[in-house]
C-alpha cells in the first residue's frame, strides 16, 4: 500500500517500519549530514531513490499552491526518527536553504499576483513548468547533471547566464506587476519616454565611453606588463646578480665558480623553459631534480634529455632512486667531465640511461662489500620488478640502463 505516496498517513505507516523486523527496504529516517531543515526531504529522497533537490522543490511548490507542503513536512518530521550520527554535527548549508526560501517567496509573489494560489489558471502554468523541469532533471544521468552544474559554474558563462536570468526575472516581474495592477497601458507611455531618453544619452555618450574603455584596457595591459617586468627583475636580482657576486668573490676557486655558474644556469633554464611541474609528481621532474642535487654536490655537469613523461608510481620511484645512485657513481668515480642521462617514458615501460665516458671498471672485480652498484642499483631495481644492466670495461666508460614496467595506463 505505501509505495510512493507522501501523505501524512503514509508517513505514519512508515514510522512503524522499525517493528517490521526484516524490512524489505531500508526504513525511512532523517539523516543529519547534509540536511537543510530537519533532513526530512533528504531521508524521503533516499527512500524513493530521488535527488533530494526534487523533493525539496516539491515541498516548496506544495507549500505555495495550498499550504499542504508545510503540513506534510511537519508531519513527516514528527513521525520519522532521526538517523544516528556520530561525531560533530555538521553545520547546515544556509545558502542553499536561503535559495529554497527565495524560490518559495518568488513563486508565492507570482501566484498571488496571478491568483494561482486560489486555483486560477496560473497554477497549471507553475505545475507544468515544475513537472517539466523535474522530468528534464530526472532524465539526465548523473554525469550529465554534473556537467550542467559545472557548466553553469564556468566563469564567463556564469556571469552571462546570471545577468541574463536576472534581467529576465526583473522584466517579467515588473511586467507582471503592472499587468496585475492594471496599469500597463498607462505605464507604456512612460516607458517609451524613458526609452527615448536613455537611447539619446547612449548615442551622445557612446564615443566617450568607447574611449574610456579603450584607455582602461591599455592601462590594464600596461600594468600587467609592468608587473611582469617587476617579476623578472626580482628574479634576476635574487638569483642571477647574487650568483654573479658570489662568483667574483670565489674567483680563486675554479671548482666553486663552475659549480655556482652551473647551478645558476640550471635554475634560470628551469625558470625560463620548464613547465611548472611539481618535482614529486612526474618521472621527468624527479629525474631532473635528482640530477640537479647531485650536480650541486659533486660539481660535474649532468646533461639530461627526457622523452615523454608520466606520474611517479611507487615502482618508478625506485627507478629514480636507482638512477640517482648511478649518477652519483658516475660523477664521483668515473672522472668524466660530463654525464649524460636519457629518460624515456613509453606506454608500457620507463627506461633511464646514465652514461659517462670516464675510466670505467671491471664489473667482476667489484668487491662484494661495495653496496653502490649491487644493492642500490641492481638490487633495488629487481626488488621492485624492474631490471638493471651495467655495461662497462676499463677505459670504455660506463652505461647503466634501468628499465621498469609501468603499473597501468
Amino acid at each position, binding site marked *: 500500500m505505501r509505495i510512493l505516496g507522501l501523505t501524512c498517513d503514509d508517513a505514519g505507516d512508515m514510522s512503524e517500519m522499525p517493528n517490521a523486523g526484516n524490512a524489505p527496504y531500508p526504513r525511512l529516517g532523517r539523516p543529519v549530514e547534509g540536511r537543510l531543515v530537519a533532513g526530512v526531504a533528504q531521508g524521503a529522497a533516499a527512500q524513493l531513490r530521488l535527488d533530494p533537490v526534487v523533493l525539496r522543490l516539491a515541498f516548496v511548490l506544495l507549500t505555495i499552491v495550498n499550504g499542504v507542503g508545510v503540513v506534510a513536512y511537519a508531519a513527516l518530521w514528527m513521525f520519522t526518527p532521526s538517523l544516528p550520527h556520530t561525531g560533530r554535527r555538521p553545520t547546515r548549508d544556509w545558502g542553499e536553504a536561503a535559495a529554497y526560501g527565495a524560490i518559495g517567496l518568488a513563486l508565492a509573489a507570482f501566484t498571488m499576483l496571478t491568483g494561482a494560489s486560489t486555483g486560477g489558471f496560473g497554477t497549471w502554468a507553475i505545475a507544468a513548468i515544475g513537472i517539466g523541469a523535474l522530468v528534464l532533471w530526472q532524465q539526465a544521468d548523473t554525469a550529465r547533471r554534473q556537467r550542467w552544474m559545472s557548466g553553469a559554474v564556468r566563469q564567463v558563462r556564469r556571469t552571462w547566464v546570471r545577468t541574463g536570468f536576472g534581467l529576465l526575472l526583473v522584466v517579467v516581474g515588473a511586467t507582471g506587476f503592472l499587468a496585475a495592477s492594471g496599469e500597463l497601458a498607462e505605464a507604456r507611455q512612460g516607458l517609451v519616454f524613458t526609452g527615448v531618453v536613455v537611447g539619446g544619452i547612449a548615442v551622445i555618450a557612446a564615443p566617450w565611453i568607447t574611449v574610456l574603455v579603450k584607455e582602461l584596457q591599455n592601462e590594464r595591459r600596461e600594468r600587467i606588463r609592468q608587473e611582469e617586468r617587476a617579476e623578472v627583475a626580482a628574479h634576476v636580482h635574487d638569483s642571477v646578480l647574487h650568483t654573479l657576486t658570489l662568483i667574483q668573490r670565489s674567483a680563486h676557486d675554479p671548482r666553486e665558480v663552475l659549480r655556482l655558474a652551473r647551478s645558476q644556469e640550471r635554475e634560470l*633554464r628551469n625558470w625560463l*623553459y620548464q*613547465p611548472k611541474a611539481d618535482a614529486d609528481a612526474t618521472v621527468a621532474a624527479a629525474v631532473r631534480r635528482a640530477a640537479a642535487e647531485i650536480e650541486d654536490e659533486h660539481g660535474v655537469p649532468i*646533461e639530461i*634529455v627526457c622523452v*615523454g613523461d608520466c606520474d611517479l608510481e611507487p615502482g618508478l620511484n625506485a627507478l629514480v632512486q636507482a638512477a640517482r645512485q648511478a649518477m652519483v657513481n658516475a660523477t664521483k668515480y668515473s672522472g668524466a667531465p660530463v654525464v*649524460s642521462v636519457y629518460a624515456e617514458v613509453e606506454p608500457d615501460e620507463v627506461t633511464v640511461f646514465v*652514461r659517462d665516458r670516464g675510466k670505467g671498471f671491471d664489473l667482476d672485480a667489484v668487491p662484494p662489500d661495495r653496496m653502490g652498484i649491487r644493492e642500490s642499483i641492481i638490487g633495488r631495481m629487481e626488488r621492485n620488478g624492474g631490471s638493471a644492466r651495467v655495461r662497462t670495461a676499463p677505459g670504455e666508460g660506463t652505461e647503466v640502463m634501468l628499465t621498469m614496467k609501468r603499473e597501468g595506463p
Partner: protein
Amino acid sequence: MTTKVLIVDDHRLFRSGVRAELGPEIEVVGEAEDVDSAVAAIAELQPDVVLLDVHMPGGGGQEVLRRVLGQGSQVRFLALSVSDAAEDVIGVIRGGARGYVTKTISGRELTDAIVRVAEGDAVFSPRLAGFVLDAFASTEAPPIDPELDSLTQREREVLRLIARGYAYKEIAKELFISVKTVETHVSSVLRKLQLSNRHELSRWATARRLV
C-alpha cells in the same frame, strides 16, 4: 681544404670565444651581429657554413634562414644556441638549418659538427634528438604521408643513441653499421623533420611549452 665559416651572434664575447676554440680545419671568414648584417655578409663572403644564433635582434636566426634560403642560396646553417625551448630548436630546423647544437659544446665537437654540416650531413645534439623522438611519438593522428610522417625503427634507434650521449662513431659501433650509414639515417630524419606536416611540429613545440 679548410671550411669557411661565418659566425652570427649578437654577443661579441661569444663570437671571439668560438673563434678561439675552433680547430685548424676551420677558417672564420667573418662575423655578424644581427639579421641585416648577417644576410649581407653571407651574400658577400659566400661561407660554406654559417654558425647561427637563434635569438638575435631583428627577428633572430629564423629570419636569416628565411631571407637567405628564400633566395635559393646553397649555404649551410648550423644553429647554435643556449635556448632549451622546443619551439626554438624545432623552429630553426624547420627553417632550414642542418643541425642544432647548444653553446655548451666543446671546441673539438663544434669543429667536427661544422665539418659534418659542410659535407652536407645533419648534426643532432642529444636534446634535439629528444625533441624529435617526443614529436614523432606524441600524436596518434593517422599519417597523411607514411614515408614522411613516421620514423623507421632504425632511425629511432639512432636518435635514441644520440639522446643517450653517443657520438656518431660510437653509434656505428653499437649498431654494427658504418659512420656513413649513421649520417644517412640522421639526414633522413632531418628531411622528415623539415618536410612532414602531419605533426605540425612547430605548433607542437609551442603547445608543449604551454602545458
